[in-house]
């Protein structure tokens, strides 16, 4: 591999030279070299496990490299912990926010960096500084609001502000748009451009290639712990990058679907309302219909009722009011569907939270692979379970869905995200369901596996299954769905045929507070 030094820049803001790091037998980084010109946005892309996060963790002082060295602004440095990284002007914004929910924004910024012993004068000082900073950068947040009350877009700005307040001149952003609406993403990018204009160097870790193309000046692709290529943005394209990431051609776009004729309603729900412990409506009069042979996408920013909708429809949670018809069976709030009954009625569910819900991480693959279907006669012998059959079936599932490694005895937690998801899908799809509810099917999944999973969902649709797809990735919904429902604050704010959908329309519906029922 060769390190392509950015043209035009005299001294790179960050230079990583031949960094190597291994964890046991896994070589997370092998001779990785990366050079980021000051005042630019540098994209870092690659599949899960390609070594991006490890590399950034080394730069931020979480890990020490086994070999290689780091230069910041031309000077060779040793970064033993994140304090030293911060002192060198490196700031990091994590994918999962590092904020204290019960404190105000101001307190969160100050936490750990208080300028004095007493809080009152300190906060006065910090407030003044922050106000100037917000003026200069356009990163506006409500300093006195509690973190728990703010939308994610604002929390992200707060995280960036926190890094800048600590003197960051080099900003690492890890998957910053994963939780944002399209509008918030646009806003974030404007801010980042402004920061760049002010001379901040930005390293953007992402898997959204469109964002790389619109924001970055240069981009480095990593695969299997090594740098595959580093190019200026003008010399590459999204397709080119995807191919470099996966090592082969991938197609994640929309494919002409065989819209099955003669649809019948498989599931219909009327006026589902779910109230949380504090009386807040998590679902508000949601009605929907799922037909055979179609994929219905549910779009919305995370936390607007999609998760609850999945739980209610799958029987994990009974609604406060409302009714549902599944096949020929009707359920009302007092006698709601139970997960076991749902499986009997051929309703399969791939839950959003793979780790907590879809699998038992402590179990080996062959025990996780029958979860939910463990009562089926095939898996049982009297009161004992038939381990031989379970292992056999698991091996078959791994074969059919290309789960790697093909090891039925491996612990469920030891598989990568994509392979875990494939095993869960193999289990659920393997039952030839009449209805499939699937939440975030490709969250934390490699591009190669995404393509595979999308094709499996399409094949299931073409075989006549009714699929409800909840995803926070608009691209995914646009690539798969035949019909789209948009949710906001527990309400359905719109229902569109796929031909009426584009990112802008959906984004507006996702952000609209009032129920603008289409």
């Amino acid at each position, binding site marked *: 591999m060769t390190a392509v030094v950015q043209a035009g820049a005299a001294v790179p803001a960050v230079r990583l030279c031949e960094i190597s790091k*291994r*964890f*046991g*037998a896994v070589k997370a980084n092998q001779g990785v070299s990366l050079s980021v010109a000051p005042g630019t946005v540098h994209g870092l892309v690659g599949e899960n496990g390609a070594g991006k*996060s*490890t590399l950034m*963790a080394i730069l931020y002082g*979480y890990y020490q490299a086994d070999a290689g060295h780091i230069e910041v602004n031309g000077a060779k440095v040793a970064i033993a912990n994140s304090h030293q990284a911060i002192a060198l002007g490196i700031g990091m914004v994590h994918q999962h926010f590092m904020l204290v929910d019960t404190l105000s924004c101001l307190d969160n910024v100050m936490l750990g960096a208080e300028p004095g012993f007493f809080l009152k004068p300190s906060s006065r000082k910090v407030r003044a500084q922050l106000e100037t900073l917000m003026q200069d950068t356009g990163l506006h947040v409500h300093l006195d609001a509690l973190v728990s009350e703010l939308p994610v877009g604002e929390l992200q700005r707060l995280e960036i502000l926190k890094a800048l307040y600590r003197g960051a001149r080099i900003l690492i952003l890890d998957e910053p748009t994963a939780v944002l609406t399209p509008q918030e993403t646009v806003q974030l990018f404007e801010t980042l451009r402004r920061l760049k204009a002010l001379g901040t160097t930005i390293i953007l870790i992402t898997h959204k290639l469109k964002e790389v193309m619109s924001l970055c000046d240069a981009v480095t692709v990593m695969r299997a712990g090594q740098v595959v290529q580093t190019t200026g943005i003008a010399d590459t394209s999204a397709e080119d990058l995807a191919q470099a990431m996966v090592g082969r051609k991938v197609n994640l776009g929309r494919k002409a679907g065989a819209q099955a004729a003669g649809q019948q309603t498989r599931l219909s729900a009327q006026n589902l309302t779910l109230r949380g412990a504090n009386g807040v409506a998590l679902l508000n009069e949601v009605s929907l219909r799922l037909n055979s042979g179609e994929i219905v996408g549910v779009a919305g920013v995370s936390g607007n009722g999609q998760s609850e909708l999945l739980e209610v429809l*799958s029987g*994990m949670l009974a609604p406060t009011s409302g009714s549902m018809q599944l096949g020929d069976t009707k359920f009302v709030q007092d006698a709601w569907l*139970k*997960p*076991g*009954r*749902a*499986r009997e009625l051929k309703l399969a*569910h791939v*839950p959003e*939270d793979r780790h*907590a*819900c*879809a*699998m*038992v*991480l*402590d*179990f080996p693959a062959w*025990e996780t692979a029958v*979860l*939910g279907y*463990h*009562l089926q006669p095939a898996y*049982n012998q009297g*009161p*004992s*379970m038939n*381990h031989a059959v379970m292992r056999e079936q698991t091996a078959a599932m791994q074969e059919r869905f290309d789960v790697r490694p093909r090891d039925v005895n491996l612990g469920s937690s030891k598989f990568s995200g994509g392979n875990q998801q494939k095993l869960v899908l193999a289990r659920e799809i393997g039952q030839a369901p009449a209805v499939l509810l699937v939440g975030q099917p490709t969250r934390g999944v490699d591009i190669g596996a995404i393509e595979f999973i999308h094709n499996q969902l399409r094949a299931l649709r073409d075989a006549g299954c009714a699929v409800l797809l909840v995803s926070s990735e608009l691209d995914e919904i646009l690539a798969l769905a035949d019909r789209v429902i948009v949710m906001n604050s527990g309400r359905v704010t719109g229902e569109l045929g796929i031909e009426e959908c584009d990112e802008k329309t959906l984004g507006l519906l996702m952000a609209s507070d009032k129920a603008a029922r289409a």
Partner: protein
Amino acid sequence: MSGQAISLPRWIDVGLLPLWNLMIAMLVAGAVVLAIGHSPLQALTVLLNGALGSVRGIGYTLYYTTTFIFTGLAVAVAIHGGLFNIGGEGQATVGGLGVALMALALGPLLPAPLLLPLLVLSAAVFGMLWAAIPAYLQAWRGSHIVITTIMFNFLAASLNAYLLVNWLRPKGGMSVESAEFAESARMPALHELAARFGIELPSSPLNLSLVLALLACVFVAWFLWKSRAGYALRSVGSAPRAAHYAGINPKLQVLIAMGLSGALAGMVGVNEISGVQGKLTLDFVAGAGFTGIAVSLMGRNHPVGIILASLLFGVLYQGGVEVSFELPGFSREMVVTAQGLIVLFAGAMATVSAPMFAKLYSKFANKKGA
């Protein structure tokens, strides 16, 4: 970017690490012995000799082992269901009560082959019901099982004392204990059985309950890892949301786990009351319920590990009695200190040395791999 997960090969995890912990505990205990002016080596020799040096000593050791297997299994089953049962003490007490009530009621009427299974059943059912109350409170009422099981230990001791003083004590009896059971309600001691075959063994409290304990180990292993019910129990224990998703009722599993746990603890009553005392007494569990926690922790919540850990604690108990007997000035408390150190190093701090072994191992593996 989570911290490096420590994954050690099995032989280090279940073999080397516990031995290492045990060794550290022994070293520290040795230092304490030295500090009070005794020779650690002499103490250890007396201890091992007392526990394993004679048939009689081995008998006593295995008798203690039996009790610890029951309480250890009780803790382990609950842990696999995601619950921390600290109520083994109380469940064992109530199990003993069950044995006594059955033995006093039916002892004069039934022969041993009919009565003994009934005693076992009674011990299990009493222990199960006693544990079911905290289980119900946890699953349906939201009170925490650790708190309730501790409280139920006191309740069980008080209940036992009340019944003994007011109802079960024979008229005119001076000591707080029940009447002696009929001979048919006595679990046969090993030396008695051996005598029947013409083998002369010194008398010890070891009785057939040991066989029962080993059968319980086999049952628990089958239940947890082979049965459908165990599958459900373990799913709830390690991933309650996933269990709910899979159509398993977590509340019911709490009841099952605690019921089984209580039944196992209750069997202590068979060993102590039917096997040794032959009458119901006060405080016959004597802390074995708590020792069960250490046994289970050290045995990695696995029946095989629990048998080994129970043996270790059996040796310590029996050997400890001998040490305090033989060495003047070496009090019983000193033995408790040694046991405490083992619980500390092998139980509570069981994984403290794991990162060190992980580092050593990865260095070694890297060298081999490179």
